[in-house]
C-alpha cells in the first residue's frame, strides 16, 4: 500500500508532463468533448432523456469491444453501436423515461455482449478499463480529427434545430399542433446524442458518462433557467472540469476521469447548496408545485 500511495503523490515534474504531445491531445480532445456535451446536455435534461444517455453509453461498450475483436478503430465501433442504438430509441418515439424497464434490459444485454466480445477478443484488462472508465491520456490524433468533425457537425445542426427542438422537448403537444415535426426532431436529437456519447465515452468512459453529458448541464440548470445561459454555463463547467482535472491528474498522478468526475460533482453539489439557500432565503408562497 505504501508503494501505491507514493506513486499517487505530488509529481514535481508535472510542468514537463503537461508539455508532452499526449497532453496536448488530451486537452484538445477534452475541450471538444466538453463543448459537444455542454451543447447537448441541456436538451438531455429538458427532454428527461438522461437515462437514454446512460443507456447509449452502455450500448457503446459492446461496440468498443467488438471493434477490438474485429480489429477496427474503437471510435468506429462505438459510433456504429451508439448511432444504431440512438436511432432505435428515437424511432420508438416515446420518451425513454417512460420505458425504463425495457431500456434497462437492453442496457444490461448490451453490457453482457460487451463482456462476451471482450473475452472472445481476449482483450487485456487495460482495454476494457479504458472503455469503462475512459482514457483521456491515450487520445490519438486520428481520434481528435473525428472529435472535431463530430463536435462541429453537432454544433451546426443544433444551431439550426435548437428552437423547434426546445419547443418539441418541453411542449410536444402544442409543438405538434403548431406544425413542428416532433418525431423527426426526436430522432435527430438521438443521433446527435449518439455522437456526443461516442466521444464522451472515450474521455470519461461508459460508467462515468453522466459527468460530462448530464451533470454540468444539470448544475447550470439549477443556477439559471434561461436556455442560452444554461448551455453556456454547462459548457463552461464541463470545460473547467476537463482542464483543471487534467492538470490535477498530472500533478498528483491521478486518473483524469476521477479528477474530472470529482470536479463536476463538486460544482453540482455547490449549485444545489446555493439554490437551496437561495430558496429558503426568499419567501416563496407558491413553491413546490409539480
Amino acid at each position, binding site marked *: 500500500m505504501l508503494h501505491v500511495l507514493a506513486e499517487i503523490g505530488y509529481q514535481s515534474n508535472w510542468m514537463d508532463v503537461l508539455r508532452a504531445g499526449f497532453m496536448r491531445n488530451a486537452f484538445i480532445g477534452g475541450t471538444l468533448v466538453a463543448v459537444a456535451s455542454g451543447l447537448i446536455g441541456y436538451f438531455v*435534461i*429538458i*427532454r*428527461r432523456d438522461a437515462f437514454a444517455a446512460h443507456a447509449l453509453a452502455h450500448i457503446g461498450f459492446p461496440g468498443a469491444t467488438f471493434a477490438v475483436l474485429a480489429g477496427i478503430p474503437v471510435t468506429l465501433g462505438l459510433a456504429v453501436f451508439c448511432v444504431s442504438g440512438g436511432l432505435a430509441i428515437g424511432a420508438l418515439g416515446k420518451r425513454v423515461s417512460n420505458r425504463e424497464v425495457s431500456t434497462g434490459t437492453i442496457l444490461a444485454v448490451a453490457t453482457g455482449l460487451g463482456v462476451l466480445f471482450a473475452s472472445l477478443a481476449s482483450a487485456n484488462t487495460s482495454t476494457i478499463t479504458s472503455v469503462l472508465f475512459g482514457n483521456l491520456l491515450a487520445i490519438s490524433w486520428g481520434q481528435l480529427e473525428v472529435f472535431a468533425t463530430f463536435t462541429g457537425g453537432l454544433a451546426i445542426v443544433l*444551431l*439550426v*434545430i*435548437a*428552437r*423547434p427542438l*426546445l*419547443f418539441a*422537448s*418541453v*411542449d*410536444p*403537444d*402544442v*409543438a*405538434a*399542433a*403548431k*406544425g*413542428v415535426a416532433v418525431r423527426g426532431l426526436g430522432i435527430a436529437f438521438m443521433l446527435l446524442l449518439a455522437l456526443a456519447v461516442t466521444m464522451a465515452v472515450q474521455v470519461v468512459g461508459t460508467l462515468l458518462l453522466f459527468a460530462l453529458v448530464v451533470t454540468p448541464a444539470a448544475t447550470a*440548470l439549477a443556477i439559471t*433557467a*434561461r*436556455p442560452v445561459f444554461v448551455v453556456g454555463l454547462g459548457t463552461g463547467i464541463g470545460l473547467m472540469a476537463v482542464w483543471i482535472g487534467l492538470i490535477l491528474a498530472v500533478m498528483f498522478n491521478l486518473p483524469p476521469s476521477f479528477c474530472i468526475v470529482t470536479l463536476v460533482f463538486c460544482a453540482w453539489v455547490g449549485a444545489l447548496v446555493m439554490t437551496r439557500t437561495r430558496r429558503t432565503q426568499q419567501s*416563496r408562497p*407558491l*413553491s413546490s*408545485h*409539480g
Partner: protein
Amino acid sequence: MTSSLTLEGVSAARGGDRIWTDGSFSIGLGAIVGVIGPNGSGKTTLLQMMLGLLPVASGTLTVLGEPPRRGNPRIGYVPQNYTAEIGESIRCRDLVTLGRTGARWGLGGRSGADRASVDAALDAVSAQGFADRRLSQISGGQQQRVAIAQALVGDPDLLLLDEPLANLDVRHQHEIVELLRDVHAQREVTIFVVVHDLNPLLSILDGAIYLLDGHAHYGAIGDVVDSELLTHLYDTPIKVVRTAQGDLFTRS
C-alpha cells in the same frame, strides 16, 4: 368566412375505432362554446381533428372556413394536463415565447414584434408578475394562465382549451372563467372549452357541443341545460335550477 366550425356528416375515429358519427352543425364566429360529454366520448378527438392532428374519418369538417391543417397559426391550443407534461426547468416567459417563435429554424433573435406580442399575451392573463419564474415555481392556476398566454401569443382567431379547469379549486376555476370572459371581450376570438362540469362556465357559454350516444350535437346553451338531456348525457340524475339571478344551475 362566417363560421368557426362547420361539420357535415362528420364521424370521428381513433385507431380504427369509431368514436362518434353524424356530426352536422355550424357554429358562428365569436362564440364561447363548451364541449361536453362523458369520459371517452371523443371531446379531445374533436379538438385534435380541428387541429389537423387526427384525420376526419368521414364527412367534411371546416375550421374558420378552411379544411383543418397542422400548424394553422390562427388557432391557439392548450392541451389537457398541459402543465403536468412540461418539464419544470423552463421560465414562463420562455414557454410563452416558444408559442410564437418555436416553429422557426435557426437561432435568429426575437424581433421587437415578438417581444411585444409575448408581453401582450402575458398582460392579457395577468401573468407578468411571475413571468420570469419557472413553471414549477408557480401554482396550478398560474400555470393555466401561462398556458393560455402561450395559446394567445400568436393572436389566434380561435382558442381551443382542453379541460382548463381540471385540478383547480373553485376559486381558481372562477378566476380562469373570468379570464376567458375578459379575453373574449378584448380580442376577437372564438373560444372552445372542453369541460367536465358545465357549472363554472354557464355564465359565459353561448352554446355547447355535446357528445351523446355516439353522436355529436350542438345546441344553444339554454337548450343544452335541460334536465332530461343532462341526465341522459351523464347517465345520472341531474336537475336544472333557475336561481333568482336568472343563473342556470345543474346538480344531481
